[in-house]
């Protein structure tokens, strides 16, 4: 970390210790890569980022399709779904969706969206793309490990995808795969081969996450360019950095849970099984605890929701500041709240388990810790609002999605305060109130962060702009759609409707709201179909979009100092040195309304603040 600033404007060749080891000029002359090296087994972080992004988009379409299928069932429980037979085959029985397959649909929807889209697709894309570009590095610390990270993810994806088509059906015990249901094929057919493939796929997925995470952390610590101290990092990098740390600490625990479950399923152990009589037979297992699995699962599962949301928070902070033409308000408070959230995220997991029979005293402790985490989240929201205040806002599509993110994060986050209250969770646990809460605060918000990121960094990824008008249509349709789906879902939840129900028609208690459920289904399916506007815009713009300039948003961070399409090694010449924080927007006295991080204070004497004078 360089504490002193060099007097010369250009620093010679970065700094020796942080140079990732290839001489770029030399590189350009000799290196002709084959198609396979360049686009498939690439070690370039930008290509790997695009691989994660496009895989994520494909997974999102699959995950969304699954949700449309089960929304059909929930909206029209009496309808015949004969017309789906060509797609679903034997899972349509006499015109009705098979109830076990319904559970498989919700299970796979959750798994795909949480892990394959919002973990790999979001953090995989933008950590890879932005870390080297924004800290001023030629590539990741280990390009090879980075490539492995993608290909482990790819193999894991193939296995998970294949599991959708096997005879006994994919995993169907919920995305949380609580045993004994997930351990016993005699309890549900999805717990046969489908669950085995799920576990194998997740094990590989975790390997991919760990390879990626180690790389992100190492790169951020070691490869920052000259002058890029930790207190000059864009908030995106802070978010990716802490996300990677969370993943590195949390995913191994899921791995252990998966491993123990594999042992219970295949090798006759009793970690999670005890006193079970099923399918006319008493099982020999005794002494295990299903609750132990839940502790292990949520020790990952809770940090996981922050793994999903923190990258989005980082990108939104960056995009809000850029397009409001204002410094992010409370830069240090933003870092502090990210640190607070990261720390607290590890000690709140059991709020998912208030009514599992866990000792009520533990429930009290976790309720207390859970409600503390609302404070740093609230600080972030206030800081985003203060960033907009007296700005000069340009509504790019990315900006709209960032504003949408803040709106959805507030809407979903507030209800978390109710759910974190153990006394209130008794009634609300596992109802649609929970479903509405997390779909807003981590599902939709993270998706909005993802879209904001894609629209904002698309020019740097592909050298072209996405179509703004289509972007606006996509935004308003999605934003309104999300609220139409998830706001009424709270009403359904307050009324006590349990989640993962194939139909509520059997209960008098849940006989109201048939119309509202139809409404939610229509809104969900329309909003899903609307996403094809984005997909068209994305692929069309890759080849036919308007050509981008180097710095289309007049942004201050380092990635915008690279060529329109940065090549291998990112900067054709030396890596630029950094002199200032990334948020010098609309600084009084400055000529332009932004000062890139690469501009030394000696060149901006008219706008330097008193304490900056001595750094001139």
């Amino acid at each position: 970390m360089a504490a002193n600033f060099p007097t010369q404007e250009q620093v010679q060749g970065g700094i020796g210790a942080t140079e990732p080891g290839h001489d770029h000029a030399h590189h350009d002359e000799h290196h002709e890569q084959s198609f396979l090296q360049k686009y498939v087994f690439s070690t370039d972080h930008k290509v790997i980022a695009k691989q994660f992004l496009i895989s994520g988009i494909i997974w999102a379409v699959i995950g969304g399709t699954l949700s449309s299928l089960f929304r059909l069932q929930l909206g029209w429980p009496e309808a015949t779904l004969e017309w789906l037979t060509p797609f679903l085959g034997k899972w349509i029985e006499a015109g009705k969706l098979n109830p076990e397959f319904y559970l498989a649909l919700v299970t796979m929807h959750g798994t795909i969206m949480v892990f394959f889209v919002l973990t790999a697709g979001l953090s995989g894309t933008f950590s890879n793309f932005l870390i080297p570009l924004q800290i001023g590095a030629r590539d990741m610390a280990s390009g090879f490990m980075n490539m492995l990270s993608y290909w482990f993810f790819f193999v894991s994806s193939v296995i998970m995808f294949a599991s959708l088509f096997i005879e006994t059906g994919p995993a169907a015990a919920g995305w949380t795969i609580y045993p004994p249901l997930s351990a016993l094929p005699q309890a549900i057919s999805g717990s046969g081969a489908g669950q085995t493939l799920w576990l194998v796929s997740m094990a590989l997925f975790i390997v991919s996450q760990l390879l990626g995470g180690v790389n992100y952390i190492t790169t951020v610590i070691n490869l920052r360019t000259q002058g890029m101290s930790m207190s000059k990092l864009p908030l995106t990098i802070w978010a990716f950095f802490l996300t990677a740390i969370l993943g590195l600490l949390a995913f191994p625990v899921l791995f252990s849970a998966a491993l123990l479950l594999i042992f219970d399923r295949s090798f006759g152990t009793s970690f999670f099984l005890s006193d079970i009589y099923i399918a006319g037979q008493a099982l020999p297992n005794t002494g295990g605890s299903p609750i132990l699995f839940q502790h292990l699962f949520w020790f990952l599962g809770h940090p996981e929701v922050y793994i999903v949301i923190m990258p989005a928070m980082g990108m939104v902070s960056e995009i809000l500041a850029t397009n409001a033409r204002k410094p992010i308000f409370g830069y240090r408070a933003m870092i502090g709240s990210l640190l607070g959230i990261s720390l607290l995220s590890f000690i709140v997991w059991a709020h998912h388990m208030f009514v599992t029979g866990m000792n009520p005293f533990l429930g009290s402790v976790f309720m207390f810790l859970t409600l503390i985490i609302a404070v740093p989240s609230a600080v972030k929201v206030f800081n985003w609002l203060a960033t907009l205040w007296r700005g000069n806002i340009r509504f790019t599509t990315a900006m709209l999605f960032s504003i949408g993110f803040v709106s959805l994060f507030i809407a979903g986050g507030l209800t978390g305060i109710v759910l974190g209250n153990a006394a209130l969770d008794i009634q609300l646990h596992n109802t649609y109130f929970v479903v509405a809460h997390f779909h807003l605060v981590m599902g939709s918000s993270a998706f909005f962060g993802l879209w904001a990121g894609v629209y904002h960094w698309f020019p740097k990824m592909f050298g072209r702009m996405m179509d703004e008008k289509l972007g606006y249509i996509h935004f308003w349709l999605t934003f309104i759609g999300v609220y139409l789906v998830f706001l009424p879902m709270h009403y359904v939840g307050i009324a006590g409707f349990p989640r993962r129900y194939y139909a509520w028609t059997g209960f008098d208690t849940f006989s109201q709201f048939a119309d509202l459920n139809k409404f939610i289904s229509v809104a969900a399916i329309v909003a899903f179909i609307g996403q094809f506007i984005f997909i068209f815009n994305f692929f069309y713009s890759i080849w036919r979009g308007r050509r981008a300039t180097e710095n289309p948003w007049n942004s201050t961070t380092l990635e915008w100092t690279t060529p329109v399409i940065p090549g291998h090694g990112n900067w054709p010449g030396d890596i630029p040195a950094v002199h200032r924080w990334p948020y010098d927007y609309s600084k009084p006295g400055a000529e332009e309304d932004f000062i890139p991080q690469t501009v030394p204070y000696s060149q901006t004497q008219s706008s330097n603040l008193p304490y900056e004078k001595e750094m001139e």
Partner: protein
Amino acid sequence: MTTLSIVLVLALLLVVFGLLFRLQILTSIFSGSSNREVGVSNRVNAILCMVFLIGGGAWFAWSFIENFDKMNPPIASVHGLATDKMFWVSMAILGVAFVLTQVLLFWYSYRYQHKENRRAFFFPHNNKIEVIWTLIPAIVMAALVFAGWKEWTRITGPAPKDAVVLEIMGKQFNWLVRYPGRDQKLGVVNYRLIDAVNEFGFDLSDQNGIDDFTAGEIHVPKGHPVLLRIRSRDVLHSVYMPNFRVQMYAVPGMPTKFWFTPTKTTDEMRAQTGNPNFNYELACNQICGRGHFAMKMSIIVDEPDDYVNWFAQQKSFSDQNPEVLASFKQKSEKLVNKAPAVPAAAAVVTPAAAKASL
């Protein structure tokens, strides 16, 4: 034929959209609007932000009021009244925060939309307001936590000594219910003894189990604390009684419990809701397999006298199934003759069951 025409219509629609899209691009290039850094669409989006705030807010308020009556399941337990009050107080506080922040978000977006010749206000931080808006949520949280914690400890505290005890056992895919009989003691059960007749796994060599009886629906007396002992014999289930605001998992191998006091009889609730067919219902609220959505049992809240009458009329499991009782007698005789030890399986289960009874 219809399929073909639908496909054709869709294809034509796509072509039309494609052409419109190209046309839009060409006109924007022609008019030069694509070169302007901040165009008309900025103003349009700013206005849409306000439209969304007002329109969305109005829709939210309308739909909330419209659905309010439907979203409150009638309450019939003592703690339910308290938690519901706390829920709506919390929601009101959060509602204020929700409205305030959303209004600011969209108002600022509209108010501070891009203007030529205006510069944003360079305002990187302000320690004073940051401290204030860290403290305010912290204080509100502390108040909410404290209220929640008090209620939670009360609800999960030990059940009163005179509570009516019954056992609910979840299985794929229905509920089984057992009452302790006259001696007020639930007999020992063992999952290894379960079969088609002995669904609970009664171990009738335990005298406490002789007068236990099972029931097809749950009866509880109004105004008396009721202690539910909860078990599962296969996968996880969750005992969920929305009207009583009761929920607790049924976990195989780990008995759980929950106690509550019903406040209204089924008849009173029928009168209150104006629905002569009203029934309190028990639902499963933890995914348990194919029949998860259909694990229902009725709960009848009786006047205490009626409850006593109903209780007196029940026949014990051992009376109804003399052959099961006889088999245990034979077994224990054999055991007494051959080996003095208790059956190994029963010995394993007994401590667990004992621990579960508080």
